[in-house]
């Protein structure tokens, strides 16, 4: 095949920007020494041991996973009905509604998250209304709820879009067939529409869970210093502590963790006999 040679630039790109950096991270994770000086490097499991021997780090990992799972579940509970309702509209209205969902994503991620500070802050809009009504201001920021809010707000479109796209592709004849065989609207949804939309749900879960479990910006801004996540820990190692070995080790641990989670989800997906598609 002559076309084979067209894949060369992509292979180069992949190696240069994905494979080599990934190998570097593995290399850093499995070595110790002065991060800025290659000659001091030696093979060691020290960073991995440091992580697993410290209950503090394990706790941060568990906390990150918990928050990511909760935000994924909230996104799913909110996102599925939204996707379903929009998919039922006529194509013209549908596109407008989806556009409205996507437009905020054109805004800078940081800016969108900052906006919540002015809403939820001590002198923010919500608290000033509460105070005008004569109540004490509420602690809306710098807690887990604020982090969850930030995650759900930022990642909800990633749940809605894949589910929406799968729902609109379901052959309408299948729904008619179910009704023909005696299924009312609820049974039709339970037995035909929902099972057929599972690939979209799985993609949505991956697309929300992965950024949520590794985020550091949302927890940084809305969670304050006391509520750090695994993403913040990794960021600290690279930006402030300068321990690239430990930072890389944590990255690898998080990556392996995500891989296991996704493998489990895709296994569940296959057992349900969903149609292909999705991230895995």
């Amino acid at each position, binding site marked *: 095949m002559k076309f084979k040679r067209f894949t060369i630039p992509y292979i180069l790109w992949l190696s240069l920007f994905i494979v080599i950096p990934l190998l570097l991270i593995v290399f850093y994770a499995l070595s110790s020494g002065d991060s800025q000086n290659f000659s001091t490097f030696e093979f060691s499991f020290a960073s991995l041991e440091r992580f697993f021997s410290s209950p503090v780090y394990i706790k941060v990992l568990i906390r990150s996973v918990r928050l990511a799972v909760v935000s994924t579940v909230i996104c799913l509970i909110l996102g599925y009905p939204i996707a379903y309702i929009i998919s039922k509209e006529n194509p013209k209205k549908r596109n407008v509604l989806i556009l409205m969902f996507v437009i905020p994503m054109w805004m800078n991620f940081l800016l969108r998250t900052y906006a919540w500070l002015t809403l939820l802050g001590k002198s923010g809009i919500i608290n000033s209304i509460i105070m005008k009504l004569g109540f004490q201001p509420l602690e809306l920021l710098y807690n887990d709820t604020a982090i969850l809010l930030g995650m759900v707000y930022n990642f909800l479109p990633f749940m809605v879009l894949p589910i929406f796209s799968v729902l609109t592709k379901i052959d309408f004849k299948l729904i008619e067939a179910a009704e023909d065989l005696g299924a009312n609207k609820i049974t039709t949804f339970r037995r035909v529409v929902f099972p*057929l939309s599972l690939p979209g749900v799985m993609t949505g879960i991956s697309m929300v869970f992965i950024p949520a479990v590794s985020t550091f910006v949302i927890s940084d801004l809305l969670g304050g210093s006391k509520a750090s996540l695994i993403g913040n820990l990794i960021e600290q190692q690279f930006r402030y502590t300068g321990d690239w070995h430990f930072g890389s080790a944590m990255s690898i641990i998080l990556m392996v963790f995500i891989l296991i989670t996704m493998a489990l989800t895709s296994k569940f997906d296959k057992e349900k006999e969903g149609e292909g598609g999705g991230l895995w």
Partner: protein
Amino acid sequence: MERQHIVDLNNISMEYGGVTVLDNINLYIKENEFLTLLGPSGCGKTTTLRIIGGFEKPTKGKVIFEGKDITEVPPYQRQINTVFQKYALFPHLDVFDNIAFGLKIKKIPRNIIKEKVQEMLRLVNLQGFEKRSIESLSGGQQQRIAIARALVNEPRVLLLDEPLGALDLKLRKEMQNELKNIQKRVGITFIYVTHDQEEALTMSDTIVVMDKGKIQQIGTPIDIYNEPKNAFVAKFIGESNIVNGIMHEDYVVEFSGKIFKCVDKGFLKDEDVEVVIRPEDVDIVSPDKGMLKGIVTSVTFKGVHYEMIVKDKDIEWMIHSTIMKEVGTEIGMDILPENIHIMRKVTNHEI
């Protein structure tokens, strides 16, 4: 033997955004009958079927099922099942669960479901396919599963929307026979939609010919073929020679400059008419004996017969015959009175 009406369509009209798709359809369907809605695409046959199934609500008119008005009843409450055009089998379920779908909804005990599914698989000749996935089946097999999935619910009426359209010719012929056999065995009313006239003639007890949202003719396959009510039906069912003629008086018609005896009456004196003659009804005789004379201009071998085009003055006759005449030969042609069908000239085909 007069059988009871199972479905009545009373004055059904259907409009989509101002376009009339069905125009005052009146039709009854008798119990255990194999009825075919036949017509070109866009004639309204599928819409009629969807109205019976409950997937569309007519703009006007009523659907009566065993004497009860079901116009407003949703599909899932009708004792009617459908075999869809592209089968519409559930891709996320295996063969067993596809067939069992309707029974599970009715909360029928597991062991009975199992029995019934197996019985259906036997009926459609696919024993042992329970655990197969839908995508692993061929088109013909999917077709059979779709029929089994509908029939297992023991509907009073089975609707079939061009179910054989996606199959190749040989398979289609096989399935035609099989469908007819299944219908006889289970004794359920079949309402069948197709644009294939041969399919309609082979399988049906009654054919309803439709065009432009109107019923053109209702009758048995033999009636429809031998006594088409208008030029549309004549053209659509089989092949026909349609020539202009003049009806001089009862049983006497003139066309191609000759006077012929025929079996039709009740026309005005010297009324302009259309004369329909089937290609196989033109007999080839020697040039001096025939009523008509012409030169063979083309011959095509069609398997059972030859198709010849014979030019007689400005008329080209199509003849189907087992006798072959060389191109350029002069032949005589005769037509028996009962094979000459006279039709009033109408611009829109009213009955």
